[in-house]
């Protein structure tokens, strides 16, 4: 008789990818937020309440548990703007999810910090928009939000949580990343940078106004890599080694969306991706197996041969994806030319020539022109 009791994370991650098992869910408890970041991807206009009640959230969590989800992220909006956050958090934890909380930390209280100290989350991730009030509040648009952020970080560190700070680098803070790195280092907090800004999930283009130029993205990544590791960044880049599909078919989706990961919004609608929310399914009304089957059919579709990215040798390492394409052009089959240009710049290539994909005709385009 052998009594096996061993860590098996690697095994389960590989198995879930191979067998298409839902391991990871991002659950947006509310889209509302106390900050007004200029480039937030969350669109409130088409996404009105009433949002899920506490009991409805519990029912969704019950369904996620039965589906076999292990890694659960609670996000917003700002999750702490929900008064029932402690109840939801404790319920999720008792269900046996590994609960990560995304927050901006500005609404952290002694009570929540005590809750996290007594009942620790798996991890907490916080966006850092600047290392001083000028930059931070220049992004958030809310005067006084920087000291509240600092207090929140103090509370989280005092509670001993596993903490990650994330900085979305925009044109507002492109010259400020060194100060942010230093701020995190001084406090001994693990941190990372995203060099690109997403459009709004409803296709709103305002966030793109705050993107840094594609060629500057490469320079910024080089600078950050040097600051974080003390070493020059070299090719090939890690993100260029994602590999293609095992069966040789070029799929529309190359990531884990709808394969090992999915998203649930504050109305209880499930979709394959936090950014790309169509098709979506009413998780509160449908059986999980039906949701997962239909989601799978969507993400497993091949990339049309006529699609502009079909056959591109850079595609497997390109940050353009159906979600970003849809947000920029209205169609998942086209592209967000910004990411195409970023990828070309990463490889030292001239940018490709792009038609206006927002007016691209059907069947690939969303436009009827």
């Amino acid at each position, binding site marked *: *008789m052998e009594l*096996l*009791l061993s860590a*098996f994370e690697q095994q389960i991650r590989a198995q879930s990818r191979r067998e298409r098992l839902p391991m990871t869910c991002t659950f947006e408890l509310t889209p509302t937020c106390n900050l007004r970041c200029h480039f937030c991807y969350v669109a409130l206009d088409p996404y009105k309440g009433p949002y899920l009640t506490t009991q409805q959230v519990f029912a969704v969590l019950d369904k996620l*548990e039965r589906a076999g989800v292990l890694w659960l992220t609670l996000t917003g909006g700002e999750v702490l703007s929900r008064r029932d956050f402690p109840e939801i958090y404790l319920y999720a934890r008792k269900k046996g999810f590994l609960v990560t909380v995304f927050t901006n930390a500005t609404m952290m209280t002694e009570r929540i910090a005590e809750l996290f100290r007594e009942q620790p989350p798996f991890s907490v*991730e916080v966006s850092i928009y600047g290392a001083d009030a000028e930059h931070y509040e220049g992004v958030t648009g809310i005067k006084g939000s920087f000291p509240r952020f600092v207090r929140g970080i103090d509370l989280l560190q005092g509670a001993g949580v*596993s903490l*990650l700070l994330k900085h979305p680098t925009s044109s507002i803070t492109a010259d400020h990343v060194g100060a942010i790195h230093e701020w995190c280092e001084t406090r001994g907090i693990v941190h990372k940078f995203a060099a690109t800004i997403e459009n709004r999930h409803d296709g709103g283009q305002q966030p793109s106004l705050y993107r840094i130029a594609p060629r500057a993205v490469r320079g910024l990544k080089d600078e950050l890599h040097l600051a974080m590791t003390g070493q020059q960044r070299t090719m090939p880049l890690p993100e260029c080694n994602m590999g293609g599909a095992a069966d040789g078919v070029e799929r529309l989706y190359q990531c884990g969306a709808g394969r090992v990961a999915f998203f649930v919004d504050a109305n209880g609608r499930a979709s394959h991706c936090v950014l790309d929310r169509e098709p979506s399914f009413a998780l509160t009304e449908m059986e999980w197996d039906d949701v997962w089957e239909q989601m799978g059919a969507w993400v497993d579709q091949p990339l049309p041969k006529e699609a502009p990215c079909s056959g591109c040798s850079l595609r497997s390492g390109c940050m353009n994806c159906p979600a970003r394409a849809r947000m920029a052009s209205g169609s998942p089959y086209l592209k967000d030319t910004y990411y195409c240009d970023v990828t070309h710049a990463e490889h030292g290539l001239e940018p490709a020539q792009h038609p206006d994909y927002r007016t691209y005709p059907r069947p690939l385009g969303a436009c009827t022109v």
Partner: protein
Amino acid sequence: MARFVRSADVVARRIAGELVLVPIATRTDDAERRTANFYVLNGTGEFLWDRLASPADIDALVSAVTQHFAISAGEALGDVERFLAELADCGAIDTVERT
């Protein structure tokens, strides 16, 4: 003799066909990759885990194992002791003293 029972600090989840023990107080050691430490039980482990739903002493667990599996009492005792020690290490069981 001490008895053992499942800890409320661990949740058993059926994940990808396996019975996984998830310590609910677990924190990731790698905030960026969100790696986790949790445990999977094989068939025999599951058998014993079922019996730990209510307090049980080693003799009772060994007896249950020898009745259910083709194994000697001596072998079963070693396995059960090792299993309980591993469960204790990951905080999955509590010890209940007889009153």
